[in-house]
């Protein structure tokens, strides 16, 4: 296997994609799972298909088209929900189907055969190119920097927005920045797992993490590790079994969750004990 990774350039690239994919999906996934924004993320994922369709039609990079559409729909949902008196889940319903419809129409209008359409629906980590990898690398760096520097602000805005407004006038800026970053994470990870499967890449690792911790920063770290283990073993398994990689990755992630759940189930339940107060001076 090791020789295969060194011999085949595409396998090495897939390995890098697994690393950046687990970092980006682990960070963004922890945020959307904690904030219960999974349905919103599903909306972003599917509406980005519209961008892929238009990109095919006018002959530009599909990932770029999907990124534009994904970010625009994320902001559109927030706008509809806050300004147009449409409830957020209805707004998601609008844009979810609208994006898919736009995509289907433009792909139909595009002359000739669209060869790798399936790779956008179900993912194709083995054909990931250097441009995709560079984008994933940059996004990983931005996310790591942003979450390391503004960890407390992100945590408290996500946890209790109302209270956060008492100490920050930039609560909305943080929210919009985060939703834009989440959209970009989703779109770039579409290359790995596809529109249909990418959401589980973002939701399964954080849920594995939640079995072991109730602390947001630890949740992010465990998510990244769990994502890496699940994605890497999925990649290896699909190589040996000669089955589709994206689907195998989701399969191994679910398997990892089941194993973690069983290990966790056997662990002793927490017992709250009143301990002696700390030997410290008064406030």
């Amino acid at each position, binding site marked *: 296997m090791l020789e295969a990774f060194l011999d085949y350039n595409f396998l090495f690239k897939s390995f890098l994609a697994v690393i950046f994919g687990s970092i980006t999906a682990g960070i963004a996934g922890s945020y959307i799972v904690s904030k219960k924004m999974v349905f919103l993320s599903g909306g972003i994922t599917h509406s980005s298909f519209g961008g892929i369709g238009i990109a095919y039609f006018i002959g530009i990079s599909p990932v770029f088209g999907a990124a534009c559409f994904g970010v625009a729909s994320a902001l559109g949902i927030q706008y509809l929900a806050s300004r147009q008196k449409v409830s957020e889940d209805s707004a998601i319903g609008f844009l979810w189907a609208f994006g898919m419809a736009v995509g289907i129409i433009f792909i139909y209008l595009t002359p000739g055969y669209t060869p790798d359409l399936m790779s956008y629906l179900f993912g194709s980590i083995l054909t990931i190119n250097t441009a995709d990898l560079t984008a994933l690398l940059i996004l990983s760096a931005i996310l790591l920097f942003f979450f390391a520097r503004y960890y407390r602000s992100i945590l*408290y805005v996500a*946890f*209790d927005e109302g*209270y*956060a407004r*008492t100490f920050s006038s930039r609560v909305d800026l943080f929210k919009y920045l985060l939703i834009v970053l989440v959209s970009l994470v989703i779109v770039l990870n579409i290359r790995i797992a596809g529109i249909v499967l990418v959401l589980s890449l973002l939701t399964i690792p954080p849920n594995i993490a939640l079995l072991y911790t109730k602390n947001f920063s630890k949740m992010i770290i465990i998510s990244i590790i769990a994502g890496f283990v699940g994605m890497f073993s999925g990649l290896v398994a699909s190589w040996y079994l000669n089955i589709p990689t994206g689907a195998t990755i989701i399969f191994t992630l679910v398997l990892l969750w089941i194993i973690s759940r069983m290990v966790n189930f056997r662990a002793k339940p927490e017992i*709250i*004990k009143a301990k002696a*107060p*700390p030997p410290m001076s008064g406030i």
Partner: protein
Amino acid sequence: MSTLIELKGISASYNGYAVLAEVNLKIREGDFIGVIGPNGGGKTTLLKVILGLIKPTGGEIVFNTDKIRRNKIGYLPQMAEGDNNFPVSVRDVVLSGLMIIKGHNARMNREDRIKADNVLNELGIYHLRNKSLNNLSGGELQRVYLCRALIGSPKLLLLDEPGSFVDTSFEQGFYDKLKELNKTVTIMMVSHDVGTISAFVKSFACVNRKLHFHDSGRITTEQLKAYDCPIQLIAHGDVPHTVLKTH
């Protein structure tokens, strides 16, 4: 008593409705103000104007900057909006009370964690510091949020209906705690429960679009009538109280 904050002719609206009209109030150092009034009368809006969460449509707020700044106000909201299932520990929630002093790229160090532990210990919930919120009872949650309001050593404490979700077993302890805190901190507390709070507040503010300040911890039904402050008086058995006849 010197004035900490003065509201001069404050008008404010909420969701397009004018809620406060021409409100004047001097918050004096060391006072314990009970804010009473009917639902929708503007009590919460008043607190939010002082916090800077709602911009007044008219009038001005003057801070005595020698004594207080906005980041020295502790706030306990009526309904804490925090999601109890969010992966955050009690101690981390309390630490968020330091954000107003530390700013956006705040880091919490050992000293801050000790501060949080001390406040938790003070309110008797130190043993819960590493728990997540969904394991806590209503009264424990209330204490966590009070710790969040206290960790920044505030000069002024704004409490919005703190009695509304405290379990009765803790209620008396909670009010005793406030009384003790009032030795060093100025307190302004919204409550619908005039009966209970009249036992320890030093003054009353009746808010019903307008504000009437009453410089005594005792208030009678006649006065409430004169202030156009239609509130319910709730009598509690174990608190000494007087029921006055309506004329």
